[in-house]
C-alpha cells in the first residue's frame, strides 16, 4: 500500500522486525490473502482490524508458520525466512496467544508456564525452581494463585494471563495477541495493558487483534485494516478517528456508519404486562441462591454482574441445563419442570450459550443440520427426516439473519464466529420461542456481525419475545436492556429500571451491593 511507509509513531522510525511482502494465500476456492504487505516495528503496538473473514487470522497464521504462503515473502530483520512449523516461528522469537487458550488444563499452572522449556537440574525437571519462578512471573501479571494447582481450576481470565505470560517468557521479539481481552475482567484488562506498556518499552513488537475499538485507540500506535483478504489501510492510530476506522472495516460511507451509532439497540417499543418468564427463588448448590427473574413480552432484561456473579448460571438454571435444588419456573403462565432442557425448550425457553464452540455448534454437521438440530423432532414425520421442510426453514433463516456460508451444506466449524452465532440464533428462532436467553451473544464476533445480531435481538423484542441478555460489554448491556437485574455471588442484589439503566448506576449498584469482596476468579 502506498501509505505504508508513514506508519511510524516515535521520533525515529525503526526498521521492521517482521515483514510480510506481497503475501497471498488461497484455500480451496477461497482467496484468504491477496498481495498483503505488512510491517511490524520494534517497540510498536500495531492493531490489526477487520471483520471476521477479512483475513486477520490467516495473516497471523502465515506469520507464525501455521500456513505457508502461496506467494510472497516473510522477512525477519530484513532477510527472507521460511517457517516450517509454528515451533520454528516460535524459536525465531515470534510468540502467539491465540483466541482459544492453547494450554493443558490438567497440568499445573507452573508446568503450563514452562511447558517444553522447564528449568532442569541433573537432567530432571527442577520443580521447586519452576514453581518459584512461576509465582514470581505471574505476580507481575496480577495472577496470585497456587501454581501447583491444575490450570483448569483458574478462571478463564487468569488462564488467559498465564497464556500471555508464557508467550512473553519465550524470549519473544514479536508477540501476537489475538483477542486477548475477550475473556478478561476489567481489572485484568488493566493489568494486561500494563504488561503491554512494559513490552513496548523493552522494544518488543506487538501485533494486537481486537474487536474492542476503545482498547485499540487506547494502546495501539499503528493500525492496519483488512477487508476481504486485502490490506485497505495502514497508518498511525492517531490519524484515524473511530468513525473513520469503522467505515474502513465495513467498507461503507462514514455517513452511513454515523447513522447507526455504536450499537444497534435502542428503538422503543411496546412491552407487555403479563410476564412471559417468571423464575422464582432458583437455588443451586454453591452457585445460586434464591435468584428470581421476570421477563415480559417485548422486554430485554439484562443480567449485570462481574464474572462469577452467577449470570450464566441463572440463564442455565432457567433452561434446565444447570441442576437446581429449589425454585419454580413458569413460561407463559405454565409451570415448567426444572432440570430438563427438553422441557424448557418445549415450553419455549431457550439459551444461546456463552461458549459457542463447546456448547453451541456441532462443528462437523452442516449449517442446515445445525439450524434444524433442536427442531428436528418437530419437523419429522414418524421419525423420518423431511428435507423439504428443512430446506424451507434453513433458507428463510439464512436469508433473514444473513448467514454467510458457501452453501447450507458447509460445515459450521468452517464458518466465522459471527456466522456461527447467527446459525445458533436460527436454531432457536425456528422453534418460535417465547423467551430467548442470550449469554454473551456478541463475544468474539466482528463489528458488522455484532450490529446485525444486536439488530435481530431488537427486532425479536419488538415482535413480543422476552429476552434475557448477558454481556460483559457495559455499553451493550446498558443500551440493549430495558431493565437490568444485578447479581453478585449468586444472589440478586439489585435492579435498575427506566432511567436508572446507565453505566454509572450499574457500577454503583455493583460497588454498593452487600456480600463481601467481589469474586474475580470467574
Amino acid at each position, binding site marked *: 500500500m502506498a501509505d505504508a511507509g508513514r506508519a511510524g509513531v516515535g521520533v525515529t522510525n525503526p526498521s521492521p522486525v517482521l515483514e510480510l511482502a506481497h503475501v497471498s494465500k488461497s484455500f*480451496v476456492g477461497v482467496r484468504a490473502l491477496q498481495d498483503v504487505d505488512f510491517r511490524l516495528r520494534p517497540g510498536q503496538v500495531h492493531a490489526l482490524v477487520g471483520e471476521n473473514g477479512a483475513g486477520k487470522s490467516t495473516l497471523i497464521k502465515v506469520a507464525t508458520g501455521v500456513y*505457508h*504462503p*502461496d*506467494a510472497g*515473502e516473510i522477512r525477519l530483520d530484513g532477510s527472507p525466512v*521460511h517457517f516450517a512449523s509454528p515451533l520454528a516461528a516460535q524459536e525465531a522469537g515470534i510468540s502467539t496467544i491465540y483466541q482459544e487458550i492453547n494450554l493443558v488444563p490438567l497440568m499445573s499452572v507452573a508446568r503450563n508456564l514452562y511447558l517444553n522449556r522447564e528449568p532442569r537440574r541433573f537432567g530432571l525437571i527442577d520443580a521447586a525452581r519452576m514453581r518459584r519462578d512461576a509465582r514470581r512471573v505471574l505476580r507481575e501479571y496480577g495472577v496470585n494463585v497456587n501454581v501447583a494447582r491444575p490450570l483448569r481450576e483458574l478462571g478463564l481470565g487468569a488462564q488467559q494471563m498465564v497464556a500471555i505470560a508464557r508467550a512473553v517468557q519465550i524470549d519473544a521479539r514479536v508477540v501476537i495477541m489475538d483477542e486477548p481481552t475477550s475473556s478478561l475482567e476489567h481489572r485484568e484488562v488493566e493489568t494486561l495493558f500494563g504488561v503491554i506498556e512494559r513490552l513496548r518499552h523493552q522494544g518488543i513488537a506487538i501485533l494486537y487483534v481486537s474487536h474492542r475499538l476503545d482498547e485499540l485507540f487506547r494502546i495501539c500506535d499503528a493500525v492496519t485494516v483488512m477487508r476481504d483478504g486485502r490490506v485497505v489501510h495502514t497508518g498511525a492510530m492517531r490519524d484515524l478517528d473511530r468513525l473513520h476506522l469503522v467505515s474502513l472495516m465495513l467498507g461503507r460511507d462514514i455517513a452511513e456508519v454515523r447513522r447507526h451509532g455504536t450499537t444497534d439497540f435502542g428503538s422503543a417499543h411496546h412491552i407487555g404486562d403479563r410476564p412471559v418468564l417468571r423464575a422464582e427463588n432458583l437455588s443451586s448448590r454453591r452457585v445460586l441462591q434464591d435468584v428470581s427473574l421476570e421477563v415480559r413480552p417485548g422486554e430485554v432484561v439484562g443480567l449485570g454482574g462481574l464474572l462469577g456473579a452467577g449470570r450464566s448460571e441463572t440463564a442455565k438454571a432457567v*433452561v434446565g*441445563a444447570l441442576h437446581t435444588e429449589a425454585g419454580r419456573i413458569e413460561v407463559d403462565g405454565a409451570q415448567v419442570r426444572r432440570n430438563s*432442557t*427438553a422441557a*424448557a*425448550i*418445549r415450553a419455549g425457553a431457550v*439459551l444461546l*450459550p456463552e461458549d459457542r464452540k*463447546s*456448547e*453451541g*455448534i*456441532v*462443528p*462437523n*454437521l452442516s449449517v442446515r*443440520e445445525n439450524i434444524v*438440530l*433442536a427442531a*428436528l*423432532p418437530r419437523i*419429522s414425520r414418524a*421419525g*423420518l*427426516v423431511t428435507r423439504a421442510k428443512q430446506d424451507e426453514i434453513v433458507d428463510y433463516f439464512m436469508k433473514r439473519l444473513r448467514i454467510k456460508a458457501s452453501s447450507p451444506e458447509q460445515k459450521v466449524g468452517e464458518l466465522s464466529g459471527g456466522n456461527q452465532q447467527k446459525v445458533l440464533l436460527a*436454531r432457536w428462532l425456528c422453534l418460535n420461542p417465547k423467551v430467548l436467553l442470550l449469554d454473551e451473544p456478541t463475544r468474539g464476533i466482528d463489528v458488522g456481525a455484532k450490529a446485525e445480531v444486536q439488530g435481530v435481538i431488537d427486532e425479536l423484542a419488538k415482535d413480543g419475545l422476552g429476552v434475557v441478555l448477558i454481556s460483559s460489554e457495559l455499553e451493550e448491556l446498558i443500551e440493549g436492556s430495558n431493565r437490568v437485574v444485578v447479581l453478585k455471588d449468586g444472589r440478586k442484589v439489585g435492579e435498575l429500571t427506566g432511567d436508572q439503566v446507565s453505566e454509572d448506576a450499574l457500577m454503583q449498584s455493583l460497588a454498593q451491593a452487600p456480600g463481601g469482596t467481589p469474586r474475580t476468579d470467574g
Partner: protein
Amino acid sequence: MAEAALRRPALDRDRLLSLLQNYGVYAAIVLLVVVNAAITQNFLTLANLRVQLYQAVPILVVALGMALVIGTEGIDLSVGAVISLASAMIPLYLGYGPWAAMGTAMVAGAVSGVISGSLVAFAGVQPIIATLALMIGLRGLAVILNGASAKEVSDPLIDGLGTGDWLGIPQMAWVAVVLVGLVAFLVNRTTFGRQLVAIGDNRAASALSGLPVRRVLMTVYVLSGVLAAIAGILLVGYGSYADPSNLGLNYELNAITAVVVGGTPLSGGKVRVLGTVAGAVLMQLITATLIQHDVKASIEQMVEAAIIVAAVYTARGRSGR
C-alpha cells in the same frame, strides 16, 4: 525461488489427502482386486467371491453396530462376547425351534446393550470401561450356559443362514444387504440418526439443544448388541456348531478396524456406513490375498497394522490442518 516450487505440492498434498480420506478404501479395494486378478489363481470366480462373502459378512454386521457406537464418540468392546453369548443361546433354545433360538440370541444381545447403554448413559461410566467389563463377564456367562463344550447345531434354517442360498445368492449376503440398508437409512434419514451424529460431535451442545442424549446412547448400544447377536447366529450357521469359548474372539477389534479403515473417526460425530462396508471388505480381501499366497499369519498381522495406521493417518492428516 524455493517457495514457488513448494507451493504446488503443498496444495496437491491437501487435495490428495482429502481424496484418500474419502475414497482411499474404495481405491484400495479396486487395487487389490486388480492385483489379485493378475496374480491369484481362480480369484475372479463366483466360488471365491462366496468364500470371501461368508467370511466378511459377520464382521461387517458387527462393524455396523460398532460404527453407530463410535459415531457417538463411544466404543463397544463387548461385541465379541455378545457373539459368544448368542452362540450359547442357540443350542440351548433350539428345542423351541430355530426362530425361538434366534430370537433368544437377539434378546441376549439387546440385554447386553441395555446394560452397557445404562452404564454409559445413566451412570456416566466411560464406554471403554463399561463394555470392557461386559466383554469379560459375558463370555464367562456364555461358557457357563453352554456347559463348557462346543455343541453341534444342525438346524436347516440356521445352517441355511450360514451357508445356504436364496434366489441363487447366499442368504448371508441378503442379511448383509438388508442390515446395511437399514443402518444407512437410520443414520441418514431418521431423526435418531442425525441426533446420534450430533451427540457424537458435541454432546454438551446437543444436551443444551434438548436432544434426548441418554435415550439415543442407550438405543445405540442396544442396536450394537443386537447386531453382534445376529453376527453370532450367522457364525453358528456357518460352522454348524456353537462354541462360546472360541466364537467371536477378537471380533471387537476386527469390527473397530473395519470402522476406522472405512473412514469413521474414533472422535465421533460422523458415521460412514458404506465406508464401513468397504472397510470390512478391504480387511477380508487382505486376509484372503495373504492366505491364498501362503504368507505367514504373523506377516498378515503386520500388514493389517500398517493398513490401520495408514487409515488413521489419513483421517488425522486432514482434520489436523
